[in-house]
């Protein structure tokens, strides 16, 4: 079932609905097979009855057997709200393999939406942004929300350049209810700027996850000869020699990732680096972990 989470396989599935279903069903099926994963949303624990407790929660079967009164406690019956902030700047259309970073981000968002709405009964919404907010689908659990979200993802073609500062005010207005905010971007900006702009999302009690989507070639570029590089967002050209990419570039990108990670964690946000040739389960697992934490 793991192969259904592979981005290479998902790239060949045109329907986001089917894709999300495939990913999530496969992922959940994988969870059920795992005996070590002790997560359950049905039953949590027994607690001794104390006066004032709701009698509807008393386990009468147990009382009949033991003549003791226990309450049966359940977990997570409250609904959460998932909002995906998808970066649709031009840099997201970079691809070294069969799927671009944008495709990967779509797969990821679609899988999140499917998991949230279909499995968790959570409200899910989408904000597509580049240097401004380009699309906003309010979080909801209404029927047809999943289709709307998928349509929003389909419409989210890379455009313009990334600017976190500008659309952030809109984020804060949109995320007025506490929930989970997932930012999917390649974060080509200063980590300080990114974190400073995104951190206010947590002020309303949101859990914020940064999914840092990068291509393998961006992390470890392989250049056999000197080449002219063109920036997808600014169209600037630059001649680069392979020696540089083998030394200085690696140091810089690693420092950038580490800086972003540390700043995000320092600001109380979760950070997850996702490489486009990796399966999607890491991101899904991250989401569910946060969901389990009570959000």
């Amino acid at each position, binding site marked *: 079932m793991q192969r259904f989470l592979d981005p290479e396989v998902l790239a060949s599935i045109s329907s986001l609905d089917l894709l999300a279903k495939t990913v999530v069903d496969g992922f959940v099926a994988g969870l059920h097979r795992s005996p070590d994963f002790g997560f359950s949303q049905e039953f949590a624990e027994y607690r001794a009855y104390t006066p004032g407790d709701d009698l509807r929660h008393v386990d009468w079967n147990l009382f009949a057997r033991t003549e003791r009164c226990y309450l049966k406690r359940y977990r997570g019956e409250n609904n959460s709200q998932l909002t995906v902030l998808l970066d649709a700047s031009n*840099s*997201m259309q*970079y691809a070294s393999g069969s799927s671009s*970073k944008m495709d990967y981000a779509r797969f990821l968002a679609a899988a999140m939406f499917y998991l949230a709405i279909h499995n968790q009964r959570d409200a899910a919404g989408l904000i597509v942004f580049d240097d401004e907010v380009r699309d906003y689908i309010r979080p909801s659990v209404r029927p047809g929300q999943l289709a709307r979200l998928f349509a929003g993802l389909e419409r989210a073609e890379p455009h313009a350049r990334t600017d976190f500062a500008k659309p952030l005010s809109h984020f804060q207005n949109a995320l007025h209810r506490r929930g989970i905010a997932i930012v999917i971007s*390649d974060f*080509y900006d200063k980590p300080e700027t990114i974190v400073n702009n995104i951190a206010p999302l947590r002020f309303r009690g949101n859990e914020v996850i940064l999914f840092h989507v990068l*291509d393998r070639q*961006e992390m470890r570029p*392989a*250049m*056999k*000869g*000197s*080449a*002219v*590089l*063109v*920036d*997808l*967002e*600014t169209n*600037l*050209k*630059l*001649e*680069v*020699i392979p*020696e*540089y*990419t083998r030394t*200085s*570039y690696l140091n*810089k*990108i690693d420092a*950038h990732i580490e800086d972003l990670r540390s700043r995000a964690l320092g600001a109380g946000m979760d950070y997850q680096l996702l490489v486009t040739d990796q399966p999607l389960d890491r991101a899904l697992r991250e989401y569910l972990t946060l969901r389990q934490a009570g959000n």
Partner: protein
Amino acid sequence: MGFLAPWFLAGLAALGVPVFVHLLRRHVTTPRPVSSLMFYERGTQSSTRHRRLKYLLLFALRTALLLLLVLAFADPFVRRSNADANGHMLLIVLDNSFSMRAGTRFADAKRQALSVLAAKSNGEKAQIIALGGQLEVLTQPITDEAQLRSALASVQPGDGYASFGELGRAVRSLAETVRGPIDLHLFSDMQHTAMPANFADVILPGNTKLVLHAVVDDPTQPNWTVESVEAPTELPDPKDLRHSRVHAVVVGFGTPAAVKSVSLIVNGKTIASRKVNVPASGRAAVDFAPLDVGYGFNRCAVRLEEDDAFTADNANIFVVRRSDPERVLFVHAAGDTRSATYFGAALRAAAQGSFVLQSISAEQTADVDPSRFAFVVLSDAVILPPIFEHTLAQYVVKGGNVLIGLGPGAARHTSIPVWGGEVQDAHNYMRLNSVQRVGQVDFSHPALEQAQPGHNNGGWADVKVFYAAVVDSAQARVAARLSDGTALLLDKTIGEGRVLLLTSGLENLSNDLPLHPVFVAFVDHTARYLSGSARLSGSRLVDSFVELRSTGKATGAAANAEVIGPDGQRPVSLSEARTAQTFRLARAGFYQIRFANGRDAVIGVNPDRRESDLEPLPKDVQQLWGGSSSSGESQVQNTVLDEMKNRSVSLWWYVMLLALVVVFAETAVASGHMGTQREEA
């Protein structure tokens, strides 16, 4: 340096293709998109320089590949000195036959040979061969030019007869030992008489390249010569006009009709002269009679008085020995009177024989000394007094010669005197009512010598043999056999002497040989052969051999043989004088010889008269032999010298090899570039 196919150089226009590709497409590069240039820094200078270097390398390789391909098709060559031609051997053959004495032929030939030798490169091996009466290999294949030059300079004109057939055979055997190619340079007057009848004899092996250097000054000059002289070698009586005469034949080669003066010279004095009309390119005979000579050896010559194109062949020399008639001891059986009659009649009838037959019966030989006789005949005399038999055996060992005829009496006695064998059997064909004829005759044997035997086996086929003894033919030369294979005439060498054994009788009872004319010739030849008079005087041809002794073993101090050449020198060393069995008469002139059996001889030696015909080989035959089709002699000479100094070495193979290397290099470099472009795409 040059090109064998220079028109292929037009392909150099194809060099425009890589120029076009690299000039117009070199800067077309596909930019490589990246998400952000946030972490990149410019590396323009080094990048550009590196790329230019690589592209220039690719351009250079492609250009070089096209250039090499065009060069390979144009087939470049260099002229390289023959110094490094391993296994290439220069074979210089200088004709020093008698005809090369005419005019300046030999000097011209030697000068040309020296110039060819001088053109030889230092590393090239060469061998010098003199083509005269015998092929003389003067050097081994060596590179030492001084030694080669010395060997070439030592060649002097000889008196022998050159045969291109012998040269062909020698070169074929030489080519079997030499692996590399052979350049055979023949310097000769190219006489047509030197060419064998069968052209296949002169065909050279495949690795031999023949270059003919003809040194013919003027082939149309007339030349007369004394072709042959018939004169008695032994002359007992000068007044006997039947024998005392000299018959000479004058021949002209390419000559007009002319009157020639011919002189007979005896011991340096002209004793007679004749005028003879020689037709155009024809022959004329002249006789001198009587031949008045003194006792002993008389050195005679028949000479043409007028000089012509080739004066060296104007004389024909011979030796006439005047002596008293020699006695022949004829020993017959007691009852045999016929054999002496027949043999004596034949001996008297012989043209050049000068023998007196002394006939005695076997019983009377006890006190006879055979050494006083020219030779001894034993006719059916198988029973001899022991003392005579012993004396006769000693006589043979010391050089005496005996003819034995085995008549019917031999069948009763198994032992054959002197012969050293026994009568094993006796065939009496009369009892069987059959007659055997002579089936096989060796006409090269001196006793049976005939120039042209004819269809009836030289007359021997008519001879009927009624009786023949069977003897052991081991260690003997069988000169004649009967039809049933029985040996009829055997020749055995015992000590210094010879024994001829006729297994039938010398009378007309055991065969009818005495009744046939061939008997006279047989007796004549046998008498001359056994008496040794044939080799004591007369004339021979250059390069013929005289037998100094019967065996190669020295039998004492008296066994020394001596030879004094025409120039008064002794060509035989002391050791050879004791052991040499034969001697080659290499020069023309009078040889004075003392044989091992103590007999003296003076022999006149003449060159082979085929050398007097100076007409060269036709041009087409020369070209056919040499495989050359070029026109002028000088052009051939220059071309040959140029080819000897330098040889063209084609380089297309190396060029193609280099092109292959460039192809690999271009593939490697180009694949590197294409890999970069794929990465960029």
